[in-house]
């Protein structure tokens, strides 16, 4: 069970989503990926995709306009 951080700060859509999808491929079930974003559109499409794919998702606003999307790979 490892935890990995993916830095997408300063990156606009769809880059964070593509990076997230790629990073999750290399993880095992139960691992956690923390995606750092500051682009509000990624705040929508990354969690939406992850939830649809069946993973557990939690979003935390770490600063004004800066979020961490925590994704636990579920399958």
């Amino acid at each position, binding site marked *: 069970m490892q935890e990995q951080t993916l830095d997408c700060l300063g990156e606009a859509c769809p880059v964070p989503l593509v990076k997230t999808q790629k990073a999750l491929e290399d993880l095992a079930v139960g691992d956690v990926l923390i995606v750092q974003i500051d682009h509000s559109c990624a705040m929508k499409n990354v969690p939406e995709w992850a939830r649809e794919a069946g993973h557990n*998702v939690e979003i935390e606003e770490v600063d004004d306009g800066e979020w961490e999307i925590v994704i636990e790979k579920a399958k």
Partner: protein
Amino acid sequence: MREKTVEQYDVVIVGGGPSGLTAAIYCGRARLKTLLIEKSLIGGLATYTNEIENYPGFPDGTGGLQLMELFHKQAKKFGVKIKLTDVKNVELEGDVKKVETFRTIYEAKAVIVAAGGRPRITRATDEERFLFDKGISFCATCDAAANTDKTVMVIGSGDAAIEEGMFLSKFAKEIIVSVIHDEGKMDCNEIARDQALANPKMTFVWNSMVDAFEGEERLERVVLKDLKTGEKKPITVDTCFEFIGYEPNTEIFVGKLNMSKRNYVITNERMETGIPGVFACGDVREKDLKQVATAVGDGAVAGVEAEKFIAETEVFRNQILQTERIGLIYVYSAIDAPSRELLPMMREVEEAYHGQVKLNVIDQYKGKSLCDRLACDVEPMTAFYTKGGEVVEISSKCDKRSVMEMLNTLVQNPIEVVI
């Protein structure tokens, strides 16, 4: 399994719609460490509404999303922490309540359930396949523009259905409305009905309900069933809008909170659920009018009650049930003269024991909830005796002799009873 992290809060609010945000504003302003958990979008169902014309303070109207952003900003200003995630489980009994997400267990002194509701669905065949972005919508405001010059169906005949249907007629070329009632009968108000019947773009299928949804990737046809003849008729549409009411988001609270038949949470007017320290507010409650304005009122009450509950718990634990000395708790009532007149005597008794006894007096009239914590239905003129923070004796004999005799059995150095 990964060990979940545990975090402590004063108040955890489940749900980030108007009532949850208002409760959060009150709790945050009362300097409580407050966490609000929302599973999808801050603002809840209010964000589905394009125009809010009846929320006081906005004479030119405002948008749901816009208004909720202001609520959100205000909650953040008071230091409320917000988490966007789903609550998986709750444990509400006891002093420490637990609200669990997939990574964390949040422990709280008080929990406010503001989980709201969601649009009801028809449960017709294959409905799930087309929900939200695949052809079945619950929000005309959101999806009207995408249906410009298209054919849409509206399910329902309440105010929401007919008003949204008329709004859609500004975009779509044809609106077919499926109504469960006989011809001419609708659940909406009469003005809306007359306008709808006169709208050239709107046609009505009376005595009908949805039997099935059909299509490949996207919705293509809605099969309507005639309730009188049983005949099934497929109708080709681009989008189907369902406006058949709401249901509460209370699945995780079933069996834990008192609920109505339709699974709405039952509270009193102080938003208390029956479990001490657990409150419910907003659309999740069993109540009549569900508006942003009523949700705000509920939220304010729940926030203040939660704050009171936490403050009282502390008073009760640290003062009333202090552990250093033998405790004498005298319950009187300010409006009951005989019980009031014993107060000076009780003080004398406390002094006579030279620091061995700690007296606490509770006015039953003002401190009803403190009395409730001691025992149910406490009458004025009742004495409680405690040792090490536990009630060891309850007595309605409040004359000086009885009180001192009882205290003598508890203290280390008994004193002579002088009347």
